[in-house]
């Protein structure tokens, strides 16, 4: 998953509202026209005007006089119906069974079991509650109409709005309660399933379980992989929850004046000949995202080593993305997409490392960050910068050698003509190609201060927040490629500063708010459709809308057309042309014979594709409300996305209520 543009709620809201109003208005015009046609068919063209006008005139008081008391009464009925028809009970029973036995089939051998667990509970909950919402809402009103129980309701002073809203409210209440219950159980389940500890493998839980590390090869005797710097001994833990950890004793050498390490993992303290003190500390190496805190009771050979409960599974990282990414080409002039290395990636631009003949390259990518304030970042000695860089190698070179990139920090002056500028030295690092790497950016960076005319003012170590980000909180990070003939690819979402983690429960709640929004739309959709369709048709249409909703991005891409009406992404044309090609066995590269039929096929395809496009905008974008990816990968759900999701849900609820109201109002209840 990647997000290339991050609309702010405040920027999104007004255009969104205008679009919503435009859709409602055009829907109303279409509805009136369609209503008039039907009325004209039934009553004649003149009487039809009167009929349509009456419906419109009655709608206003119907909405104005909608009584909360009656809505609540209808909602209470809907709740009783939902509970006594046992749909909720059955849904919960299925959920409980899945949770009880689900863990038997999950997590086996994975390094990141939390991803599987969180994915499972979110996906399962989502599907179950959506299905329940659909079943409740699709059967309720059609059953009432079929059993004629609606006769006794509509002959009371109940307005159509109250019938629609009452049902929605009732089912929404039941759904919300069930979702809360499922959420709590899921949270407990995931936490309980992942919580574990290990014992040391060896004769005792002491230093006797450790073996010395081969100082020459610096490689582990257990895994054969390189050990950590300063590692002296290593040991292994028992296998629990399908994994085990490697433990190391590392030497933490400090001068006598330095404070002692503030931890309980020191097993030996040795005074060295050079006067420094060596603290030998027991470290548990992480597996996936988690590790265990080590506690040493006592000191020396008999000290007991205990591993605590797992930590690090539940994270809600807060990425702070740049507001603007700019590429510069070899000559130093801005270019839109960076150096072209062919069709490697649509979203990444490439930074050129220069060539053997011309080593001086000005090619770089600059990320401008806003609002870089100290209080947004964790209380550490460094600021974590997460990078996911792509690499394009124009010659093979040493395949094991990683490509070197450079980072430089600069201040962004509000008045560049007057203010001095802080520029850091280039910090070089090895790229971890196509995988996330975290660079610890020190809070004190060596650099220089440059006057507006380019002359050097002073050199020294400057503070990242106070000096570089300064008062305006703006920071420029410049990425360059330090290896000649190599290219480094980066997109806007590939680099972010990692802020202070959010509370996990809050992130989990946000994920469930996404599911809740989906549920609300589903219920409203079911109720609105059931005002004019029978239950099976409601089910079918709602499932169709759901499928389109979950895949709207894909369908939109599939149906993308350029100005001439030609499909952009797909070769071989639209549905009809593709069908013709399949039947006539023509491959996708050959142009169809131009002629009368070809024109008809093209026009029909264009019509179909446009309809498909429209459908994706009419169907709720469920993908937009699905935050499970954030939770699974341990990122905080973006608040803007959440707000946009909630506002979109509100818009759909309003639209569907209107649709349901007019359909119920204009239909004859009795047969």
């Amino acid at each position, binding site marked *: 998953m990647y997000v290339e543009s991050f609309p702010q709620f405040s920027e999104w809201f007004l255009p969104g509202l205008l679009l919503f109003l435009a859709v409602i208005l055009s829907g109303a015009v279409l509805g009136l026209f369609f209503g008039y046609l039907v009325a004209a068919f039934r009553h004649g063209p003149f009487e039809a005007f009167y009929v349509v006008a009456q419906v419109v005139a009655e709608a206003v008081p119907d909405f104005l006089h909608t009584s909360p008391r009656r809505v609540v*009464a209808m909602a209470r009925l809907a709740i009783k119906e939902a509970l006594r028809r046992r749909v909720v009970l059955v849904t919960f029973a299925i959920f409980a069974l899945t949770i009880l036995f689900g863990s038997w089939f999950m997590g086996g051998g994975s390094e990141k079991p939390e991803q599987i667990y969180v994915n499972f509970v979110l996906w399962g909950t989502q599907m179950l509650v959506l299905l329940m919402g659909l079943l409740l809402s699709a059967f309720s009103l059609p059953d009432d109409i079929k059993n004629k129980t609606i006769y006794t309701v509509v002959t009371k002073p109940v307005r159509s709005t109250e019938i629609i809203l009452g049902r929605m409210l009732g089912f929404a209440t039941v759904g919300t309660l069930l979702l809360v219950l499922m959420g709590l159980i899921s949270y407990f389940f995931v936490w309980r399933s992942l919580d574990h500890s290990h014992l040391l493998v060896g004769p005792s839980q002491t230093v006797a379980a450790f073996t010395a590390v081969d100082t020459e090869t610096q490689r582990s005797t257990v895994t054969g992989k390189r050990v950590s710097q300063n590692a002296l001994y290593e040991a292994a833990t028992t296998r629990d929850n399908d994994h085990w950890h490697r433990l190391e004793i590392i030497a933490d050498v400090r001068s006598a004046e330095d404070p002692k390490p503030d931890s309980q993992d020191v097993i030996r303290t040795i005074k060295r000949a050079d006067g420094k003190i060596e603290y030998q500390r027991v470290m548990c190496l992480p597996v996936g995202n988690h590790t265990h805190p080590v506690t040493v009771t006592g000191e020396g050979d008999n000290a007991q080593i205990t591993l605590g409960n797992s930590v690090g599974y539940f994270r809600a990282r807060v990425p702070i993305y740049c507001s603007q990414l700019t590429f510069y080409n070899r000559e130093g002039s801005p270019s839109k997409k960076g150096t072209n290395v062919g069709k490697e990636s649509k979203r990444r631009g490439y930074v050129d490392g220069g060539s053997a003949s011309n080593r001086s390259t000005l090619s770089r990518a600059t990320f401008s960050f806003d609002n870089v304030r100290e209080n947004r970042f964790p209380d550490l000695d460094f600021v974590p910068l997460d990078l996911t860089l792509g690499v394009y190698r124009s010659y093979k070179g040493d395949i094991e050698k990683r490509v070197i990139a450079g980072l430089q920090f600069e201040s962004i002056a509000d008045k560049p003509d007057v203010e001095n500028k802080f520029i850091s030295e280039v910090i070089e690092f090895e790229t971890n190609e196509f995988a996330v790497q975290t660079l610890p950016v020190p809070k004190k960076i060596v650099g220089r201060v440059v006057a507006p005319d380019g002359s050097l003012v002073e050199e020294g170590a400057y503070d990242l927040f106070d000096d570089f980000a300064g008062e305006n909180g703006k920071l420029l990070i410049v990425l360059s490629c330090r290896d000649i003939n190599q290219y480094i690819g980066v997109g806007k979402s590939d680099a972010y500063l990692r802020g202070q983690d959010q509370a996990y429960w809050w992130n989990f709640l946000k994920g469930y708010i996404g599911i809740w929004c989906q549920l609300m739309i589903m219920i409203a959709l079911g109720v609105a459709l059931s005002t004019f369709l029978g239950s099976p048709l409601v089910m079918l249409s709602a499932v169709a809308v759901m499928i389109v909703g979950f895949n709207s991005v894909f369908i939109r891409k599939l149906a993308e057309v350029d100005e001439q009406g030609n499909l952009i992404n797909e070769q071989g044309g639209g549905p009809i042309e593709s069908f013709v090609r399949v039947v006539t066995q023509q491959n996708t590269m050959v142009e169809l014979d131009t002629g009368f039929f070809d024109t008809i096929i093209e026009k029909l395809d264009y019509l179909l594709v446009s309809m498909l496009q429209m459908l994706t905008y009419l169907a709720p974008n469920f993908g937009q409300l699905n935050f499970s990816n954030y939770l699974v990968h341990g990122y905080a759900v973006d608040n803007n996305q959440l707000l946009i999701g909630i506002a979109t849900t509100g818009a759909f609820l309003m639209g569907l209520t209107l649709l349901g109201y007019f359909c119920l109002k204009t239909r004859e209840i009795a047969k």
Partner: protein
Amino acid sequence: MATDTPAPSPPSESTQTPGRLEQSNPDYDPNVVIEAQNLTKIYRDFWGRQKVRALNALDLEVRKGEIFGLLGPNGSGKSTTIKLMLGLLFPTSGRAIVLGQNATDVAKNERIGYLPEESYLYKFLNAEETLDFYGRLFDIPAKVRKERVQELIQLVGLEKAKRRQLREYSKGMTRRIGLAQALINDPELILLDEPTSGLDPLGTRDMKDMILKLRDQGKTVVMCSHLLADVEDVCDRIAILFQGDLKEMGRVDSLLKVSGETQITAENIPESAHEEIRQLIAKHGGQNVVVDNPRTTLEDLFLNIVRESEDRPGMRPAGAAAEKKPSSDQTH
């Protein structure tokens, strides 16, 4: 089309707020509760083709405080008329004014009670919940609503079954709770669709008594039925429909009065006097004289037996009812 003087309406002050038409229409007569003007209903299929003409240009007026019966065989348009009055169906042409408001106006329902043909109620609710639910749809204070729920349950005799879900109810019980829900708002106008269908004779009698009691309270009742005896027993005025057309309308007593025949009823006349009476009538020119004992109705016989049995449980000698009133004679 037959017309007749409507029943005199009892002077009752309406405490309800007048409808919109009442305020705006100068021709509005507060004594006219229902007015149908040229009311026509044509059922169509999906394609708009005419399937059946259920009601044809019906003109009708129901006045305050009367029991009005719609009579006709199955498919004559009785239920359609009632559904049009309630706004459950939209007229193809013409219009229906109920309590001074258009039939499709929801506001009129505040003052209406409706018992459908079969009691279409939520089977997953019990009697108390059912009445409470319908009560909440009206603007009644919670305290009054609770009291009224208990009163109505008592009125229809369902105290023992008030906590049972309606799915467990017999047909008669369902009709009773159906009537109770129609009365939850103390309506001015009550529309009853086949009120006695599915009830045993005792229940039928109770229902009829209830309808008469409602009339005595100043309420207007419109009922439709094809059970002629029931209609005859309770209705002040009737309209007879056949295949969507109004065939006859008027007061029941004047419609049923057979002019040219005289009926004399007396008790304790011995058999020997019959001949004498016959001669006397013949002397005055009377023809086709019949002198015999009158017959009671099966309904009366049944009700007498049941009521007696309630007082004196146990075996009862057959023919006891016939012996009870041996000497009533009747002459035509």
